[in-house]
């Protein structure tokens, strides 16, 4: 079994969780005897290729491989709109990208046949252009390697057009993998209709749609109107190999309850703050930390000040690399109160560090984590109860910590990708 896979990023250079998931998937597939050709827009050369072969789209010239490609390119050209509205980027990154573009005086270029296109591979201001260029190059790559794969697999909307192009040109079956949807990124009024359109085109063109949770499967069926018979859930896993446990010296004696992630509507930061205020009414030996940045950060700070708890509720700003591990190691309880979370890998990271986690039922992770405590995101009283219990009753804390640690160590990509292999097999 051989798969042509379209991704957007791959470790070590990643901006979001998509690259990490893709690495886990290709490694798990290799374990299950599935070979992958992994295409990405801008490879750096330092990616780990022990489990896959990486093809760098920036190195490939667009070729007039068939008459249909011209027709297809005419179709995808429609998506090239010179606009700065990009839903995938968090505000800080977006601002930086725009500033950089201005500074460099970057001009958007067009590529003709026989030319290469230098992708940024980021989630920058010319994302829409890159997505449609990626489809052109993706089609070319599929034709060049037509004898080397049986199935096409595309990760998230950024790569769906490339997947469609490859399918149209080669006639091979297409799997699209839904890691997140527009419905998780914001409410319907603020959605980017261009992204929504690509998502829907990808799902309709696909022979199978793989979702990271049943929650996301429901969205794909109900919101995008996709035939349930072709939508399959393969839960995410996490690869802890090579992870070293770090030890940190604690500065505070109090229990530390942590929220770590983008501070946006989707992540439910205000429910965390409301619950913190309730817990602090009952016990003082606890501190709350909101780690990360995002468009709701300033509002969150005001909320904390208004409630008069700012001596017990701390903000760290955006954390990088080792600081994230350090933050987990300093925590006693981890909270993910997401309003809508396709999966949510962060509680797995926390539990792997031995930190008991409370997560919302509105997350994909809730479907697989038996030993995480679960509440509805809006149920602030229940959240406060659980926090209070975990900081006050050592027996519960030890149980949740130990069982949680064992549980997440069992969530391996080898198992998840065995299911993925079955999905491929059903198409041949």
């Amino acid at each position, binding site marked *: 079994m051989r798969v042509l896979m379209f991704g957007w990023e791959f470790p070590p250079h990643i901006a979001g969780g998509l690259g990490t998931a893709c690495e886990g998937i290709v490694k798990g597939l290799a374990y299950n005897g599935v070979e992958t050709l992994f295409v990405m827009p801008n490879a750096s050369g330092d990616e780990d290729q022990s489990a896959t072969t990486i093809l760098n789209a920036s190195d490939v010239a667009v070729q007039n491989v068939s008459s249909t490609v011209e027709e297809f390119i005419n179709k995808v050209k429609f998506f090239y709109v010179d606009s700065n509205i990009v839903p995938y980027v968090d505000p800080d990154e977006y601002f930086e990208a725009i500033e950089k573009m201005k500074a460099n005086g970057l001009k958007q270029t067009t590529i003709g046949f026989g030319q290469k296109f230098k992708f940024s591979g980021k989630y920058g201001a010319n994302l829409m252009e890159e997505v449609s260029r990626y489809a052109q190059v993706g089609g070319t790559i599929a034709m060049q390697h037509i004898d080397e794969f049986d199935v096409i697999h595309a990760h998230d909307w950024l790569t769906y057009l490339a997947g469609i192009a490859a399918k149209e040109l080669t006639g091979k079956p297409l799997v699209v993998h839904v890691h997140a949807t527009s419905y998780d990124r914001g409410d319907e009024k603020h959605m980017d209709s261009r992204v929504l359109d690509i998502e829907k085109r990808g799902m309709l063109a696909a022979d199978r749609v793989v979702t990271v949770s049943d929650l996301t499967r429901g969205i794909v069926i109900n919101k995008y109107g996709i035939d349930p018979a072709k939508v399959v859930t393969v839960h995410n896993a996490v690869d802890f190999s090579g992870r070293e446990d770090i030890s940190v010296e604690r*500065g505070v004696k109090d229990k530390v309850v942590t929220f770590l992630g983008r501070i946006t509507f989707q992540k439910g930061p205000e429910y965390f703050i409301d619950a913190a205020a309730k817990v602090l009414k009952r016990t003082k030996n606890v501190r709350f930390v909101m780690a990360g940045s995002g468009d709701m950060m300033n509002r969150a*700070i005001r909320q904390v*000040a*208004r409630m008069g708890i*700012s*001596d*017990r509720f*701390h903000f*760290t700003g955006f954390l990088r690399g080792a600081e994230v591990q350090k933050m987990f190691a300093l925590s006693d309880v981890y909270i993910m109160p997401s309003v809508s979370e396709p999966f949510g890998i962060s509680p797995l990271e926390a539990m792997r560090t031995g930190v008991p986690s409370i997560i919302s039922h509105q997350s994909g992770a809730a479907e697989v984590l038996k030993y995480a405590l679960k509440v509805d995101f809006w149920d602030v009283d229940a959240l406060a109860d659980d926090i209070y219990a975990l900081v006050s009753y050592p027996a519960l804390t030890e149980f949740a910590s130990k069982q949680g640690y064992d549980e997440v160590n069992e969530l391996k990509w080898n198992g998840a990708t065995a299911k993925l292999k079955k999905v491929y097999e059903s198409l041949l």
Partner: protein
Amino acid sequence: MKKSICLYFQVHQPTRLRQYRFFDIGKDSHYYDDFANRTILKRVAQNCYLPMNELLLEAISKSKGKFKVAFSISGSALEQFDRYAPEVLDSFRKLAATGSVEFLCETYYHSLASLASPSEFLHQVMKHKKHVEDTLGVTPTAFRNTELIYSDDIARQVYELGFKTMLTEGARHIMGWQSPNYLYLAESQPKLKLLLRNYGLSDDIAFRFSDKGWGEWPLTAEKFVGWLKDAEGDIVNLFMDYETFGEHQKAESGIFDFMRSLPALVLKDGGFDFVTPSQAAKNIKPVGSLSVPDPISWADEERDLSAWLGNELQQDAYNKLYGLTEKLAILADPELWADFGHLQESDHLYYMCTKFFSDGEIHKRFSPYDTPYEAFINYMNVLSDFIIRINNAQ
């Protein structure tokens, strides 16, 4: 009777905090950005304090002591002079020795203690008074509160601390039809005399001097003396930050030339004399009393407390800080008390101000932080560590 001109300059430098992260809480209790504090102080000393002191000394000597000014130097600034630029202290001592310069008393840490806690207020005023005596060899007899904050309640406290004269803002919403160019009494304590800042003429120098878009630019000493002549009343109080000279208004603007010519021109006119606040209170007859139930200040358009306590961030930080007064009362640890003092500097709250659209620019100009939110987060992290230390000391 001659019309009096009263010049008072405020000297203050905040003790800026270093970047203090959540990860530092409970581990590292050094809170200050020593490098920034030293660099800024040395720069301002070169641009402002040293050349301006020299200029004033010369003007006093040329006028045979008839030119007079007053200073208030916060304890935080005095500490920084001592540490980073002792030559500035020497030049202030020279000014004190002329007998033509009055030094006022204020809260040692340039704080809002007058609003928060009578005992802390008393502590800081006495600490400042003693420190001024020890460093400059003069005993202050007149009082100016942080940022000229004043109310009926504060007036009562200030009189009880032994002061008979106090300076404040001639805020329009308090004065109504009355002019700031007279001596007034505090309605809540009629033995306390009040000098009111003439904000129009003060700000012509402090804010507008180098503004080329201003209709009166360029401002010459001749023109300004003309305005002083036109001003009705017994006294014109020109109160401003000392950093106006060479920092806010750069040397290139001609501010030093202006100040070099002004004293002689004023005296040459024959219609004026220079007075210090305590002399003014003694010589001039009060014309009425002022009632100020809600605190006023010299800051921003509102002339109230909104620059420091206008939003929920500032209020929470303030409440958390002064909530510690009781726990500290039983502790005799000088390090804790010094940190408590420096954390009270009103500047920390000023950096958290979110009045972006009118006076926000001014706030931003003086803030070491990119946003008020960063200022708040950093301050609260420091305060959290400080609270742990207090609790450990109980």
